[in-house]
C-alpha cells in the first residue's frame, strides 16, 4: 500500500491517519499528478523525491484561516492570558501549524496582551513547504476581509490592517510578530517532546488521526505542558474518547480549551 511504502522510504508516517479523508486526498493527488492507478502513483513517488514532495502536499491538509472560530481567541484573551501573565517567560507550541495562519493570529493576541516579547513560540509541522510559507508570512489579499471580521470578533483592539502591508495581491505580515518563533519540522506521529510549554494550540490536526495516534499525541502534549498548562483544540474536537480524558479538565468547554490536571 502507498502509505506503507511512503513510511518505509521517506519515514513520513500516515499509517494512523483516518481512512475516508485520506482516501479523498490520495484520489485528488492521483488526478492532479495524472496517474491512472494508485500503484502507478506509488511507483512514481518511490523513484522520484520531487513527486513525493508533490504527494505530501495532498496528504497533509494545508487548510486553515486566521482567527478561525473567533470565540477560541476571545477565550484565550479572557481566560488563558491572565494566567500566562503570571509567568516571567513563556513557551507556546503551535502543533501542526500548516501555513502559519494560526501562528500569526496567536502572535497578534500575545502582542496586544503585552506578552509577545517574553514568549518563545514553536511552530511545527511535517510539511516543509507549509513551514516555508508560514515563515514568509504572506497571506492572500482576498482573504483579508474575512480575516478582519474574524479578528474583530476575536476581541482585536486595533485596525487589523496595521499588521500587514498589501503588495502584489498578497498581505505581508509584520516580521516582528514572528521574531521569537521557531519554525520546525516535527512529526506528531513519530517525534518526541522537545520543550516544556505553557500553552499548546493544536487545532483540527487530531481529527485526521485514529484513536491510537490521538492518544500518542495527547501523551506528548501532556508530557510537554508545565504544571497546570493549557491545551487548545479545534471547535469540534474532543478528548472524551482518549485515555487522557481524565488528565485534562475543561477551562472553556465550548471553545475547547483544556488545562492539565495536577497529578
Amino acid at each position, binding site marked *: 500500500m502507498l502509505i506503507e511504502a511512503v513510511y518505509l522510504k521517506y519515514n513520513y508516517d500516515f499509517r494512523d491517519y*483516518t*481512512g*475516508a*479523508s485520506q*482516501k*479523498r*486526498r490520495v484520489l485528488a493527488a492521483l488526478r492532479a499528478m495524472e496517474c491512472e492507478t494508485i500503484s502507478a502513483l506509488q511507483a512514481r513517488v518511490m523513484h522520484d523525491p520531487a513527486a513525493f514532495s508533490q504527494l505530501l502536499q495532498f496528504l497533509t*491538509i494545508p*487548510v*486553515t484561516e486566521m482567527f478561525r472560530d473567533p470565540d477560541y481567541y476571545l477565550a484565550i484573551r479572557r481566560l488563558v492570558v491572565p494566567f500566562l501573565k503570571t509567568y516571567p517567560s513563556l513557551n507556546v507550541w503551535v502543533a501542526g501549524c500548516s501555513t502559519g495562519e494560526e501562528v500569526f493570529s496567536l502572535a497578534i493576541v500575545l502582542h496586544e496582551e503585552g506578552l509577545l516579547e517574553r514568549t518563545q513560540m514553536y511552530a511545527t509541522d511535517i510539511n516543509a513547504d507549509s513551514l516555508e510559507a508560514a515563515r514568509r508570512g504572506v497571506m492572500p489579499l482576498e482573504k483579508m476581509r474575512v480575516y478582519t471580521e474574524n479578528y474583530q470578533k476575536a476581541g482585536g483592539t486595533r485596525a487589523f490592517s496595521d499588521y500587514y502591508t498589501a503588495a502584489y495581491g498578497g498581505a505581508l505580515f509584520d516580521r516582528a510578530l514572528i521574531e521569537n518563533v521557531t519554525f520546525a519540522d516535527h512529526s506528531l506521529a513519530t517525534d518526541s517532546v522537545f520543550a516544556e510549554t505553557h500553552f499548546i494550540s493544536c487545532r*483540527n490536526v487530531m*481529527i*485526521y488521526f*485514529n*484513536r491510537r495516534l*490521538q492518544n500518542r499525541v495527547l501523551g506528548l502534549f501532556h508530557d510537554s505542558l508545565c504544571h497546570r498548562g493549557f491545551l487548545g483544540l*479545534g*471547535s*469540534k*474536537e*474532543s478528548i472524551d*474518547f482518549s485515555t487522557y480524558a481524565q488528565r485534562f479538565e475543561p477551562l472553556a468547554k465550548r471553545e475547547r480549551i483544556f488545562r492539565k490536571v495536577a497529578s
Partner: protein
Amino acid sequence: MTPGDDAMRATLRGRHFEAVVIGGSAGGVDALVALLPAIPAGFRLPVLCILHVPGGRESRLAELFDERLPVPVREAVDKEEIAPGTVYFAGSGYHLSVERDRTFSLSCEPPVHFARPAIDVLMESSADAYGPGLAAILLTGANHDGADGMAYIRARGGFTVVQDPGDAQVPTMPVSAINRCKPNLILPLARIHALLPMLEMNEP
C-alpha cells in the same frame, strides 16, 4: 404517477439496509420537518442527515429534531461509533465522513461545491462503509452537491431515492442527481415519507 406502497415494497425486496443517509440544501429544513417524523419509535437503522447551513453559524438542527422525534437525535461527533436507531446531523464548518469501522470523522478540507459539510463527502464515504447496505435520499436544493455522491452509492450497489423535482422547493439538486445517476426511485416527499419506515423491514 408515483408507486403505491406495494410497488415500493417490491422495489425493496431482497435488500437489507444498515444505514440511511439523507442530504438536502435550500428548502431542506422544511423537507426534513415533513419527512423525519416518519421514523417510528424503535427504528433500527442509523439515519445520517446533512443539510447545508450558512457558514459560521452553529447548526441547531439536532436540538430542533430531538424534541420532535421518538428516536435519539444528535450532532455527529468525531471518532464516535455510529449507533443504531439514532438520527445524526452533520455540524457546520466541517466535512463529515463515515469510516469503514463505522465511526464518524470530521475534516477541514476545502469546501466541495462551496459547501462544508458537503453531501458528496458524506455520501461517498458512507457508500465505502456500507456498500449495498446503504439507502440514500436526496432532497431539495439549489446546487449540484449530492449528484456525485448518489452516483457513487449506486455504483457500490446502494439504493438511491431522489425527491421529485416537481415536488421540491428548489429543483436544481434533484435534477442534477437524476441527470448524473439513474436513481432507484424518484418520489414526492409524501411518498418518501411512506418509504422511510419500509427501509428497515427487510431482513437478510
